[in-house]
């Protein structure tokens, strides 16, 4: 039974009138009666209903009386029609609902004392509300618990067959990992095919289960809901910025829950366009790093050859003295700083202020440099914005989505749920260009498997096809005839057939994709790691802007060029000016008005224009001895960058390496001073997510050991260096940022920015456009392409410290290959091969992976054992300085 609520934004559903409890109510035609009743504020109990999916109608609680019918009707599966007369209250309905509760309870085990859902159970609430005290014919199911899954236990004795888990999995998340199966005389929820559950493990089934039938293996029996302190905070894993509830007991994190829950089941279906409230596997089950025993508890100082625990005062004095000493001897530019984008906005702001005011240097960078900077700089240049232009709602309601170089389901699972909703509810055409068989490619209408490294060529092809087929938007193009002429001549030499041959597609496919993109009323481009983390990322983003411009999509509502970020606050890092080329508020470093404003506010002189170094330059200068002290906050360049960057040599030459991190990382082990910082669960602040929304991070528990929030360490360090900073809380820093960047927080809502490319198109566009379309792909002589990328179950190196996630996705130490390739090379699963790139070779096992395309192999970037990353060559972008090192040509030989 499917009742599609009226969610098509293009068609206005007609309005109908019906009578509910004597009041006339207007509603949209075609929606469920239950939705109409709940929109009036009346709440009828319903255990199988949730607004995120279509009503299922199994619990029999939502009974109402309809005039003209003898028996009560189930309001959720009944369609609201004009002229209905409905009664929702009355003793007869109460008794009927009570009967339904009794029916469920009579086969329920009543093991509430040991059940984790005790106190957070809809069946319990219903039994209490309806006064069920004795059951006439109680019987038990005695179904053994299914404990085969890695994260969830299924206790089907407690199941009330509401099918919320199955519906949310199938309809909302489009994973479809659960099903009903008749087993032992009962309808049971089992994983597809009654196998051990193997899915994305997002745990949304757990969240919507109104009873304790699905339980969380990570916190089973450890808690009762009323024992825990619940803190609303923002997830620390990817740029989606999901809101979640961290539930703690003293100094332990017990579990993480989501706003998606059976508890808030009433809502407008159209609101899910802004997010359905669920979490992914990382957010829900990856919390164990917070109270991990490997956390640093006290500061460490290198004495002789090893790191020794010392009191805070001693460590801070040592750090301040040595920084001051180096600044005195070698000048401020001998100091540099790196910070991770997992820090809050306040800390990022404070960090750049510390570097620029206390250390008086502009050598600073954040992990946004690993890719996001390509997008920011291109978007800033072309559109004057520097962040994505569309929010989740735009993504959901798009008619055509061009996903290029992004395995969205793995990197940003909740953004991919938006695309899934676009496919499912709003019937969007999704074109996926990727060199892997991605999950979105399987779901989307137009999957295109391209050869690795041809993402840039694909854009060339799309632009060419648009020009050839004359799909250009006359109005946009007429405004800048010179620019369009330049673009036309730039793509003139491109042959669509050649591009098609190089990318592994056909010219027709390019034409089809270009026409879908150009002709849709709302078209969105989404580019990610395949563009921004690869060579020529900056140019490729500009080419995407060209595509959007000539098709007239720039500035039109619901259209735009977007990216996703890997770390939670990469956008915030750029916005806060943690880059040598930017000041807070994305002002250019040489912007004189902003420099004056900041100099006045900070009461200091800023480093001179033209000074400063970004990540790769900092490492180069470390190696050459120009930089003698490096302050690393949460970053781990040693484990991230390949050996060819010679990070170890660079760090070895340093006179002082101060690492501030919750864990002792590889970089930390080389440090002279290690300062224990807290994780985001132990501090206040804000993150800026990929939409530009500023989201609160709240302290859920006391800091572990003697660790201290980063902003406190930064403040202490600055005061040691002679500044007078008086920040008592993250709020104090926030109010300073608010004064400098009015409207940045904007109550957590992203400011609607209209991209305007006029300046860019009329100034110097003609000169740059010609060079952009000439990028010839450097053909590697090696037959295979080795790609490194993210797994769904991990994020950076942080998630490898969560034991639960390591259990789900351990480091297999093998490269993943296509089954056909393995067969061709005569390789069995687990066989050893010799992997050779231009940078060296290593022996490694292989494993089969269906999502890897032929001629490619894949290794997750989260693991360094064996050191596959060292096979990579680094290509540093000339304009943005982004190092790209995720793809290389390799040969694979059997050993």
């Amino acid at each position, binding site marked *: 039974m499917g009742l599609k609520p009226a969610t098509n934004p293009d068609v206005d559903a007609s309005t109908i009138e019906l009578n509910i409890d004597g009041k006339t109510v207007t509603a949209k035609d075609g929606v469920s009666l239950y939705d109409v009743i709940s929109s009036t504020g009346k709440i009828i109990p319903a255990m199988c209903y949730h607004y995120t999916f279509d009503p299922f109608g199994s619990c029999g609680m939502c009974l109402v009386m309809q005039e003209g019918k003898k028996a009560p009707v189930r309001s959720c599966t009944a369609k609201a029609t004009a002229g209905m007369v409905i009664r929702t209250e009355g003793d007869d309905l109460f008794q009927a609902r009570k009967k339904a509760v009794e029916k469920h309870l009579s086969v329920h*085990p*009543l*093991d*509430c*004392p*040991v059940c984790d859902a*005790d*106190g957070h159970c809809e069946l319990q609430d219903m039994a209490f509300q309806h006064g069920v005290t004795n059951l006439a014919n109680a*019987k*038990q199911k*005695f*179904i*053994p*618990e*299914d*404990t*085969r899954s890695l994260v969830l236990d299924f*206790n089907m*004795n*407690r199941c009330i067959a509401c099918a919320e888990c199955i519906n949310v999995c199938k309809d909302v998340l489009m994973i479809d990992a659960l099903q009903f199966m008749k087993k032992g005389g009962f309808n049971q929820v089992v994983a597809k095919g009654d196998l051990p559950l193997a899915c994305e493990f997002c745990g949304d089934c757990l969240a919507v289960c109104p009873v304790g039938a699905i339980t969380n293996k990570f916190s*089973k*029996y*450890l*808690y*009762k809901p*009323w*024992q825990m302190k619940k803190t609303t905070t923002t997830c620390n894993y990817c740029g989606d910025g999901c809101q979640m509830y961290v539930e703690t007991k003293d100094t332990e994190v017990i579990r993480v829950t989501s706003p998606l829950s059976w508890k808030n089941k009433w809502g407008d279906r159209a609101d899910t366009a802004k997010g359905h409230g669920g979490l992914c596997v990382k957010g829900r089950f990856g919390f164990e790093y917070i109270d991990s025993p490997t956390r640093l508890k006290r500061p460490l100082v290198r004495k002789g050859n090893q790191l020794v625990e010392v009191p805070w005062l001693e460590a801070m004095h040592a750090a301040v003295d040595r920084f001051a000493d180096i600044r005195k001897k070698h000048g401020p530019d001998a100091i540099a700083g790196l910070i991770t984008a997992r820090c809050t906005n306040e800390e990022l702001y404070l960090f750049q202020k510390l570097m620029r005011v206390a250390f008086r240097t502009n050598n600073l960078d954040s992990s946004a440099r690993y890719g996001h900077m390509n997008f920011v700089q291109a978007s800033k240049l072309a559109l004057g914005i520097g962040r994505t232009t569309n929010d989740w709602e735009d993504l959901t309601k798009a008619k055509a989505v061009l996903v290029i170089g992004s395995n969205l389901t793995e990197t940003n699972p909740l953004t991919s749920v938006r695309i899934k909703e676009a496919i499912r509810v709003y019937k969007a055409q999704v074109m996926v260009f990727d060199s892997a068989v991605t999950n979105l490619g399987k779901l989307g209408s137009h999957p295109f498997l391209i050869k690795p490294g041809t993402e840039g060529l694909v854009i060339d092809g799309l632009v060419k096809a648009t020009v050839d087929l004359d799909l250009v938007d006359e109005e946009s193009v007429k405004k800048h005839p010179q620019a369009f002429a330049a673009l036309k001549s730039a793509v003139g030499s491109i042959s669509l057939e050649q591009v098609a041959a190089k990318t592994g597609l056909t010219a027709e496919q390019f034409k089809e994709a270009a026409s879908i993109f150009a002709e849709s009323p709302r078209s969105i481009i989404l580019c990610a790691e395949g563009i921004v983390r690869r060579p020529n990322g900056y140019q490729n983003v500009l080419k995407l802007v060209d595509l959007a411009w000539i098709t007239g999509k720039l500035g039109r509502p619901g259209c735009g060029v977007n990216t996703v970020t890997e770390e939670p606050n990469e956008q915030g890092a750029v916005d806060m000016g943690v880059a040598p080329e930017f000041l807070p508020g994305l002002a250019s470093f040489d912007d004189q008005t902003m420099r004056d404003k900041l100099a006045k506010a900070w009461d200091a002189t800023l480093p001179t224009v033209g000074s400063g170094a970004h990540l790769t330059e900092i490492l180069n200068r470390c190696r050459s001895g120009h930089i003698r002290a490096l302050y690393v906050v949460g970053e781990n360049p040693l484990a991230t960058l390949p050996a060819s960057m010679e990070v170890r040599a660079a760090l070895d030459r340093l006179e002082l390496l101060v690492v501030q991190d919750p864990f002792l990382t590889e970089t930390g082990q080389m440090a002279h001073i290690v300062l224990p910082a807290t994780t985001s669960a132990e501090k206040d602040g804000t993150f800026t997510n990929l939409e530009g929304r500023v989201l609160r991070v709240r302290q859920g528990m006391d800091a572990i050991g003697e660790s201290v929030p980063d902003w406190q360490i930064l403040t202490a360090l600055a005061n040691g260096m002679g500044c007078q900073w008086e920040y008592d809380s993250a709020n104090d820093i926030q109010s300073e940022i608010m004064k400098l960047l009015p409207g940045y927080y904007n109550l957590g809502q992203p400011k609607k920015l209209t991209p305007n490319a006029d300046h860019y198109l009329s100034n110097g566009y003609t000169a740059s456009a010609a060079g952009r379309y000439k990028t010839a792909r450097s053909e590697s002589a090696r037959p295979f392409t080795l790609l490194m990328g993210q797994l769904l179950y991990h994020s950076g190196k942080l998630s490898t410290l969560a034991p639960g996630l390591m259990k789900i996705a351990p480091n297999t130490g093998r490269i993943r290959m296509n089954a056909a390739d393995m067969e061709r090379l005569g390789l069995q699963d687990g066989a050893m091969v010799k992997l050779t790139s231009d940078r060296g070779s290593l022996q490694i096992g292989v494993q089969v992976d269906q999502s890897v395309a032929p001629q490619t192999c894949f290794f997750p970037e989260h693991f360094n054992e064996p050191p596959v990353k060292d096979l990579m060559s680094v290509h540093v972008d000339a304009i943005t300085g982004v190092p790209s090192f995720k793809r290389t040509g390799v040969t694979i030989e059997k050993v």
Partner: protein
Amino acid sequence: MTVQTLTRKFLHAALFYEIWDAMKVMFKHMFHKPITFQYPREQRTIPDTHRGALGLLRYDDGRERCVGCDLCEAACPSRCIKVISAEDPDRPLQRYATEFYIDITKCVFCGYCVEACPVNALAMTKMYEFSTHDKRTLLFDKKRLYDIGERHLDDAKKYLYAHNQEKNLEESREYRYYFPQSVVKPTQTTPKHLS
């Protein structure tokens, strides 16, 4: 002052009335059982419903009754109970309390925790002597509570019967909860009334 009252006063004085009056009380008490008794040598008989120290109980086979459901903690008005539970490593699917604390200095002996307990693992005993030189010893941990339960098992059971919490030994386990079985190995046989 009238003649009558004068006469009474004179007679009282002459006949030492007050002394006889006092003697009357004294002789009356010579022939009746003393009301006070010599505590600690003599102890009062305490009713079964008396609310004394809390103890944790085991089943007859020695298994801990407590399933770590934390309802006692939720019911406690003075917040003196703390339960930490986990899955029993030896018996999958069985929840138990790894730690159990009662701060008896905070306890108001209301007996709500006993009432809340779904498996009758908690009971009150007739023990009321807690005097100690060190107040810290009054934070009863799990071991201490089981010790109390073992030492005062009879009293604890009488308490439960007196408060209508437990019928008798045979029935007690059957009318209580039956917990779902593990997929690895069955830990309980199906009880008679359910099979």
